């Protein structure tokens, strides 16, 4: 959709600057600014971000939702760009008219209704926790349990026998050798053995 002959705001600067660099600086610059100010007065404030090309018979560019200011409930930006309710019902319109007067005469429900027009959730509602952590913890426990089952199955069907050094007689000989070598005689292993009576210390 490259159309260098259009002198509207969107096309003049970007495209002509690219294709005819010598022209864009001087000739189209003044013309684009004049047309832009005229266009700004015609188009409302809301459509400012979507500059519409009307000249050259190319039609109107579609306004995408994501290009317009959006409403967010966020603690960091407490005042969103737009009000929550964009299309007011007749009651809401009359309430907005009443808001232009003194606020002291507004009832509590009316004040709350005005709040709900501007905002979707109050701070308390938006900050409240979801309870998602319970599902997460439940999932953690479930998968740990499942892993336990897998480990049991492995022990039975995958692993072979332990080495012969785990036999009780072999372990006994190992322990006797440790005592003979006086392993940790001060505070540890051999310290608990009574060498006189050949038994563990009581």
């Amino acid at each position, binding site marked *: 959709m490259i159309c260098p002959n259009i002198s509207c705001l969107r096309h003049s600067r970007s495209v002509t600057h690219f294709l005819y660099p010598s022209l864009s600086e001087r000739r189209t610059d003044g013309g684009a600014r004049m047309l832009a100010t005229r266009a700004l007065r015609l188009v409302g404030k809301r459509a400012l971000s979507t500059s519409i090309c009307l000249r050259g018979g190319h039609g109107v560019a579609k306004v995408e939702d994501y290009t317009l200011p959006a409403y967010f409930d966020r603690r960091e930006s407490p005042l969103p760009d737009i009000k929550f309710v964009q299309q007011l019902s007749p009651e809401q319109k009359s309430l907005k008219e009443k808001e232009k007067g003194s606020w002291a005469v507004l009832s509590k429900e009316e004040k709350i209704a005005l709040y709900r027009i501007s905002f979707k959730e109050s701070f308390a509602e938006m900050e409240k926790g979801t309870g998602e952590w319970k599902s997460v913890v439940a999932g953690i426990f479930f998968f740990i349990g499942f892993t336990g089952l897998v480990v049991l199955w492995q022990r039975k069907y995958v692993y072979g026998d332990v080495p012969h050094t785990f036999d009780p007689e072999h372990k006994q000989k190992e322990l006797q*050798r440790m005592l*003979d*070598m006086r392993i940790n*005689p*001060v*505070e540890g292993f051999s*310290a608990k053995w009574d060498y006189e009576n050949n038994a563990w210390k009581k």
Partner: protein
Amino acid sequence: MSLAKPAMRGLLAKRLRFHLPIAFALSLVAAAAFKYGVTEPRKQAYADFYKQYDAMKEFNAMKEAGVFQSVRPSGE
């Protein structure tokens, strides 16, 4: 409905004034507990062990048990 203006400055100083003495005290307590619960008993245990330690007796006992390679038991 006029709330008092909240404290805007000196928040870190206030927190430190409260928490630092506690932190120092707890650290000292932890160090003292380790010293008198672990290291002093251990030093005492080693002192007691070596007070009545006869090296030659232990060596001969180990030799008879057959754990050395350089000296074999008297029987062999």
